[in-house]
């Protein structure tokens, strides 16, 4: 092991900023991060061991205790549940004789849940040793169990298990482009970088992650900083449950995305860029490296790009299972080899980002659009969309529809139009923008996707009338509690309290005051949390509570108060140990019940 760790450190030039990448290799080799590896690495990188431990314990894909040689993770997105995930997981656990959350005794396999893996259009999905598994069903699970029990190396597994489809079902301005490598750079350099920035400004392009900050303004702020070093970062930590368009863009449009980053670098004067790729998209890694290599060979990446004196290169950094890293300052922390904890702002990344230097962080789709605008000019983009939302939006559509996949629409499209196109009937409502977004009911399908109305990063999950909204709320609320970084009190404690309170109501222990208490807690978490995660963690509850108050009320008992835990269950140990089962050895859950006894 010493030699292996030494080699990793050497290959990463003993840079602590590369800690995540090193830990990924160690986890992949040993299926955990051994204590000895931490000690050795701390010495080699000259950082305290605590820094390494805190990174290991922050990211879901790193472990201090051994996982199986086959680390199986099953996606816990609501869309996976809608496709029968729960039954499949039980079946898988039986087949492999391993409990969920456990490692099998022989150490061969471990099984657990994981947050949405971005395969909502082809779920139920999972990961084996980081590689995506799609369209899981019983026959595939039989196959997987067999392969694992035979201890077949992953390379020998049939490729159909790992098949990931693009599912582009409606293309528009961006997805229809015939792109020629280098074209955007050529146009930008020919036009002049200032002039190209002006075109991007004219295009009205706003950040595609959902927040919608004007891209040209961000680039301009960054370029105006009195610093010599600057960075371009592409945020491909597509973690919002129900979103998978960046997966498709990086699979089939990566060249344009990289070119968009390079145009940005030319404009702001950056020499180094990063693609922060979520760990769940490991299957794209080699392909993306090949494209970068090809771009270097073709003179559109590296030194003296297109002989215009522009030097810029891109490095791909993989995440390790932390939704919070989609927040730009958390992403930068992660790039620096640390736990993904959002920074205090100001200063913003455009003034102090990666290593304290001015940094542009944009979404994959934003760079794709920027490349298109560099080629075609601002009007090409601005002529489409609405007044405040120019251009098109690429949507990830999943849930109850016959044709889930990728759809590109001009901004301003109505929800109803989308539902018609993707084959959704008997719709109860749509979750727009993922759990952090808004749930809209079937009374609101004339609403428009646009920053003016429903802003979205592209997640569009459809629920038909057979679905229970509270199941969705339950799933989303647990998701946020799991993903809270824990930095600030309102989110760290609040998301766990929300989880408890939602569980109480969903499990039928709620009483008269519990919905009011829930709403009050929601406001507290929303108003006082440090970053977007906490500020939106209560959205699934708030947006459904507003639309379906009766749904919540109907779960409450007609009494003023009830414990949030199972009272009689809390006597079980004592009953068993005292060997009693008389009436006095039991408790009714509520006073009303006890009166009726």
């Amino acid at each position, binding site marked *: 092991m010493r030699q292996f760790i030494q080699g990793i450190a050497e290959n990463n030039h003993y840079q602590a900023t590369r800690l995540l990448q090193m830990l990924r290799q160690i986890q992949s080799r040993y299926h955990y991060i051994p*204590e000895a590896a931490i*000690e050795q690495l701390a010495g080699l990188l000259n950082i*305290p*061991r*605590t*820094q390494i*431990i*805190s990174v290991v*314990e*922050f*990211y879901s894909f790193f472990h201090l205790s051994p996982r199986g040689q086959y680390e199986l993770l099953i996606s816990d997105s609501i869309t996976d549940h809608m496709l029968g995930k729960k039954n499949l997981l039980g079946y898988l656990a039986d087949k492999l004789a391993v409990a969920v959350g456990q490692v099998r005794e022989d150490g061969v396999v471990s099984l657990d849940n994981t947050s949405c893996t971005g395969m909502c259009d082809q779920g139920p999905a999972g990961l084996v040793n980081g590689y995506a598994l799609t369209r899981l069903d019983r026959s595939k699970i039989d196959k997987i169990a067999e392969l694992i029990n035979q201890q077949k190396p992953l390379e020998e597994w049939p490729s159909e298990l790992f098949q990931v489809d693009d599912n582009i079902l409606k293309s528009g301005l961006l997805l229809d482009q015939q792109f020629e490598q280098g074209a955007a750079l050529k146009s930008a350099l020919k036009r002049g970088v200032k002039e190209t920035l002006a075109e991007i400004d004219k295009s009205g392009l706003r950040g595609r992650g959902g927040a919608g900050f004007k891209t040209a303004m961000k680039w301009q702020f960054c370029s105006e900083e009195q610093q010599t070093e600057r960075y371009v970062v592409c945020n491909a930590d597509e973690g919002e449950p129900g979103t998978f368009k960046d997966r498709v863009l990086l699979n089939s449009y990566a060249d344009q995305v990289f070119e968009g980053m390079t145009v940005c670098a030319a404009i702001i004067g950056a020499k180094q860029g990063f693609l922060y790729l979520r760990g769940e998209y490991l299957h794209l890694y080699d392909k993306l490296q090949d494209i970068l290599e090809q771009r270097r060979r073709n003179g559109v990446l590296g030194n003296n790009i297109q002989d215009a004196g522009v030097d810029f290169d891109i490095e791909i950094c993989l995440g390790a299972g*932390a939704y919070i890293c989609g927040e730009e300052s958390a992403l930068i922390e992660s790039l620096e080899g640390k*736990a993904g904890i959002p920074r*205090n702002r*100001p200063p913003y990344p455009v003034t102090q980002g990666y290593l304290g230097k001015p940094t542009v962080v944009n979404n994959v789709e934003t760079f794709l659009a920027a490349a298109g605008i560099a080629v075609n000019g601002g009007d090409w983009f601005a002529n489409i969309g609405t007044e405040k939302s120019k251009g098109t939006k690429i949507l990830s559509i999943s849930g109850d529809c016959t044709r889930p996949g990728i759809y590109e629409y001009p901004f301003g499209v109505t929800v109803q139009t989308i539902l018609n196109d993707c084959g959704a009937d008997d719709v109860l409502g749509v979750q727009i923008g993922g759990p952090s977004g808004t749930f809209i009911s079937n009374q609101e399908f004339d609403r428009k996707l646009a920053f003016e109305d429903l802003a979205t990063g592209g997640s569009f999950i459809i629920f038909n009338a057979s679905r229970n909204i509270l199941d969705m709320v339950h799933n989303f609320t647990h998701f946020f*509690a*799991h*993903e*809270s*970084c*824990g*930095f*600030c*009190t*309102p989110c*760290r*404690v*609040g*998301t*766990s*309290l929300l989880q*408890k309170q939602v569980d109480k109501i969903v499990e039928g222990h709620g009483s008269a005051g519990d919905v009011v208490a829930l709403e009050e807690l929601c406001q*507290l978490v929303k*108003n*006082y*949390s*440090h970053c977007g995660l906490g500020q939106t963690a209560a959205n699934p509850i708030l947006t459904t509570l507003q639309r379906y108050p009766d749904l919540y009320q109907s779960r409450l008992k007609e009494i003023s108060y009830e414990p*949030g835990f199972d009272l009689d269950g809390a006597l079980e140990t004592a009953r068993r140990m005292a060997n009693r089962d008389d009436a006095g050895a039991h408790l009714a859950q509520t006073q009303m019940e006890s009166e009726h006894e």
Partner: protein
Amino acid sequence: MSKTITIDGKTIPFEEGQTIMDAAMAAGVYIPHLCHQPEFTPHGSCKLCTVKVNGRNCSACTYPAMEGQDVLNETEELIDDRKKITQMLFVEGNHFCPSCEKTGNCQLQAVAYHLNMLDNHFPLFYPDREVDASHAEVMIDHNRCIFCTLCVRASQQKDSKDVFAISGRGIHKHLIVNAESGLLKDTDIDATDQAAHICPTGAILIKRTGYQVPIGERIYDHKQIDQVSLSTEHPKHGE
């Protein structure tokens, strides 16, 4: 001294580079806080110092003072919500004041007193946490840690060591120490280090000193934390 902000209508001068907390404390205005100490880099995590700046919630300890800001501090809403945030800190740990030797000198308790917190409001978590009494002179009771990182910062910034760090994610956050064994005795901490004394709660204690001052005669038994904070953290405003 030409630049000013207002806090609850009162005009407060500030200098470029000061946070709202700096300006407020310098002017004798107390804003509740637990993770902040003026001598360390602000952290902004406890959120008790949340104030409304031009209508928007901001952490006073990290947010820069800027000309003309209209800051609200002591509104009923903020006080009530700060109380709830304090209650969150109480329920996530195991804070049994009667059995804690820090009682009366504890800032978490003092803030709670100041906010007239009489109950826990939320269900208690009763987490399973350890006590590390391995060191001869200093001990850690993880039950009482509120993740303010003051010990982490003090160790780095004052003691030039790296004894403490916060590890884990979300509600599973926990304090770790820099030793292969994971025990405090194997770190290079000294009882004279600032990091051993900075803890606002009873999570890091110096052994055998806890009851030198009897309960009832301790810092917050008679003085509110606003007075104490203003006089110790900004001595020129002492009584």
